[in-house]
């Protein structure tokens, strides 16, 4: 396995190296789908130059390749750990006869699970979205790496490191804040502490984790302050993310909406849009409190769909998790439709951009229509996986062949 992972890494790095040296790199790094004002490498270099740090320490493609490599390895190890957990849990449940007989074919076999971590790494490294993002030197790769390391630390059960990396991710782009809930749920589950508001052990661990997290956030913010010597970075980073002043088109939902908006409704709708990102945490955490890793996946997906400056690099991160849920394929309903939609949209983005910006014959509505469709596709994908996951869990406890009260076959419908 290690050999194949190494081979995969080499292949991925060489693809990127070739692209970096080709003339495509410059074109890709200008694409709005790939870089946003938040993560454009051009702006990082500008920022560093303004800081008068001389030559930036990361001014090479190697840095971005390493970031992608770290993400892939971290995801590989996390999914490996996760699969071990799942398998152990399944074994206990099987031994205690908790599964109905007819749902045994839903159980996962080690043979099937063996290649999943490698597939996850492959989905991340060889995903065209990741490659584009890396070649564009978007710092999105760096964010992804931090989130991946955070997931790894959480799954390995290290509360302190998990808190630190979550704090790092949060200070980079705020939205990973919503990953706090699944991380906490996972750590609680690992220590066999039930989520019970009347138990002191629950509150003790929660406050401990909150303290580690908030402490790291404070330390990182403090460090930034001492490095920069002023608090300017708070409005210019977090204000920039939250109030969305830059309406450069991207694959997200914000730009068109706020470009068309009357100015006096702006604050209200910004609140609505931003709350929307965070809001799903509560219902999802309640529904998925037994399955924190799936919750992490859902949260990452929701962030990448609804965040203010999304790029294809964000999409690539949650898509990397899809092989980990390959056992859900039998319950997916719209995978063909959704993959067609995502495929077509990815092809149409550059075409409509060309027609709008260069040819001048189409306009922003065309491009936004595709953005909308792309996001609808993503939402369908995520909700399909959500439904499939819940349905599998339901079958695991209630048996595969459901009967209605009158004895006829029943179907599950999500309404």
């Amino acid at each position, binding site marked *: 396995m290690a050999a194949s992972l190494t081979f995969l890494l080499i292949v991925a790095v060489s693809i990127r190296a070739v692209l970096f040296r080709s003339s495509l790199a410059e074109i890709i790094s200008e694409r709005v789908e790939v870089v946003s004002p938040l993560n454009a490498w051009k702006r990082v270099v500008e920022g560093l130059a303004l800081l008068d740090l001389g030559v930036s320490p990361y001014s090479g493609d190697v840095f971005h390749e390493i970031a992608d490599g770290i993400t892939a390895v971290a995801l590989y190890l996390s999914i490996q750990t996760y699969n071990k957990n799942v398998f152990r849990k399944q074994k206990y449940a099987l031994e205690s006869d908790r599964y109905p007989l007819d749902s045994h074919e839903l159980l996962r076999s080690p043979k099937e699970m063996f290649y999943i971590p490698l597939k996850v790494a492959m989905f991340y490294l060889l995903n065209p979205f990741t490659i584009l993002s890396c070649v564009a030197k978007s710092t999105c790769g760096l964010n992804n790496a931090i989130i991946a390391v955070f997931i790894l630390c959480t799954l390995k059960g290290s509360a302190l490191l998990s808190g630190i990396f979550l704090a790092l991710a949060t200070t980079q782009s705020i939205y990973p804040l919503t990953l706090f809930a699944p991380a906490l749920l996972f750590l609680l589950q690992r220590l066999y502490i039930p989520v019970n508001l009347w138990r002191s052990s629950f509150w003790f661990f929660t406050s401990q984790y909150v303290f580690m997290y908030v402490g790291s956030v404070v330390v990182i913010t403090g460090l930034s302050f001492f490095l920069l010597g002023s608090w300017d970075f708070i409005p210019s980073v977090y204000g920039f993310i939250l109030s969305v002043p830059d309406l450069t088109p991207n694959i997200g939902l914000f730009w068109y909406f706020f470009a068309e908006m009357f100015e006096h409704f702006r604050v209200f709708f910004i609140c609505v849009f931003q709350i929307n990102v965070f809001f799903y945490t509560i219902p999802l955490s309640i529904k998925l409190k037994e399955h924190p890793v799936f919750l992490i996946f859902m949260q990452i997906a929701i962030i990448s769909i609804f965040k203010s400056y999304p790029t294809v690099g964000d999409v690539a991160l949650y898509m990397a998790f899809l092989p980990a849920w390959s056992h859900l394929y*039998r319950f997916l309903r719209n*995978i063909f439709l959704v993959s*067609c939609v995502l495929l*077509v949209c990815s092809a149409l983005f550059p*075409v409509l951009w060309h*027609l709008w910006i260069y040819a001048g014959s189409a306009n922003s509505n065309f491009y936004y229509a595709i953005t909308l469709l792309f996001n609808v596709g993503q939402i369908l994908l995520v909700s399909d996986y959500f439904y499939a996951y819940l349905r599998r869990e339901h079958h695991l406890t209630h048996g*595969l062949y459901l009967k209605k009260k009158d004895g006829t076959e029943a179907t599950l419908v999500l*309404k």
Partner: protein
Amino acid sequence: MGLLSDPNRRKALTNLLTRLNTPICIVCYLAAIMWFMGLAFEPFTLRTYMSENAMGSTMVEERFPSGERALSTAKEFDAHKRKAGGMPVEWLVKTMQARGLEVFTQSFSRTLPFPDENKERYMVRGTNVYGILRAPRAPRTEALVISAPCSPGNSNNQAVGLLLTLAQYFRSQVYWAKDIIFLVNEHDLIGMQAWLEGYHHTNITGIEYSPLQGRAGSIQAALSLELSSDVITSLDLVLEGLNGQLPNLDLANLFYAFCQKLGVLCTIQGKLQRNDWDTAEGYTHAAQTLMLMVLKQASGHAWGDHGLFLRYHIEAASIQGINSFRHYKTDVTTIGRLLEGMIRKLNNLLERLHQSYFFYLLPSLSRFVSIGYYMPAFGLLAVILLLRALDLWVHLGTPALAEVDGVREVEQQWTTGPNLRAICFLVSLESSSPGVLSVLTPVVISHLTGVALYLLPVQLQEMAVEHFPVSETEAVVLTAVAIYTAGLALPHNAQWLLSGEGTEQGWRVLKLTSLLYLAVLLGCTALINFSLGFILAITLVPIAACITPHMPRALSALAVVLLSPGFVILYCVFIYQELIESPVSISEGWILFLSVISQGILDHVLYRSLVYPLLALFIYPCWLMFWNILFWK
């Protein structure tokens, strides 16, 4: 969302779509053709109207008086052109300066990848001369361009004469709010390309040119004038530009409005408008005009000097004077007035032309079909591809069920269709991983052939000329044809490369991939250049929809070859000749076909037209994939 989440309803829908797949596809195909042919029927089209406020409501009065002087200038120009044996640069500079313009020249040179036999040129060296009339009434931030090509022989002298006389007349007027650039370009499109690249500080085609010494503001609109006789019977408007891009419809409306006002006969695609739309002849006439526009647009060629402006977001059109045997003639003064009126209206623009349509087809100058009306014709064809893909997807799931133990079959009764198919698809993919390889091999080989078709013709010309008794141009074209034909031998080679034989699943997966690939390709093409997308769709979709390895080989192979992109170009050549009323014999047609291919390659190298790379790198490999399916073993 009920449809997407309720398993019963989904099942019903999927069943319906798979059961009625073939009839629905046939209906869609026929409907697409009917729809397209209906576009030329006058009641289904819209009357053109001026959308731009700044041009619609303002009055201008045309006073240009000096048609005679334009003709004498044309004679003078002709004499100097003969004397200089090309562009009389010095005379032009002097004349323009005498008319009070700021005059600059730009020299350029370009070596073609292979000799252009139509225009007999290989190493091109030339000079553009342009004069700027500075706007007296406004800051110099915007400009208009009037251009006339300096062509070899007797042609276009009158255009240059009129241009210079217009310059003199415009100089004495005070109402100009935009700079006006009078450009005389040599070597038609090559010179225009050099000038535009120089003006915009870009170099995308690798042409060598000297930088422009003077420039005006950003160019808002451009008119290119071609005039070769002292009197004309009608004016023809040419809109099709590079890659099938069209200028804003308001420019055509403007031209039409002035033709009406001044009583000049105006044509599009060389066809006069008829008023008898309810007769068969009337409809045929409109349909022919529409078909000509579609063919011209699909070629991706710039059909006039204006064609290169469009890439820079400049609305431009060419106006060609036509002198036929009609009795009713228009003199140069009237043409001058028409141009004066158009330029004055454009001068009134407050922003770039953007109000009206950019995507349209014209069955006549006063009628248009907008994107919303013609896209359904393409959409109906694209739907066929998606329906076939869905059908395959469903079928890919079902046979796998039988192979697995009985449990799954019980499941089928209650599980929704496609979920199961998804697993089965993946199961089949996983269980037969050589299957994936056997699908990937044809895809890669087809694309490599495409790359060869794209690169080799130009690269190998020297070698071909050495070994065969052909000229460079012939070498390039014949290499292209040879590689294209060699691609047909591929299925056998691909089979040879594979260790095992292809499975029943294998070709289905390959077909599914190819269908989706073709759908995406055609969709993108149709958005950029509807005509090209539609012509390709109408020929490729039947192949894509019906093809299986179980058809009678020889017959279906013949059909597939006859509908391949290369043959489509051949048909287009014949249809085009038929439509412009100069039908050709088979051998002439073949020679024309070869010259069209060389033009296509030249267009790509000289002006970065996208049609040749699109056909060579994407459409042809995609067609080869279907060819592979036919010969699947």
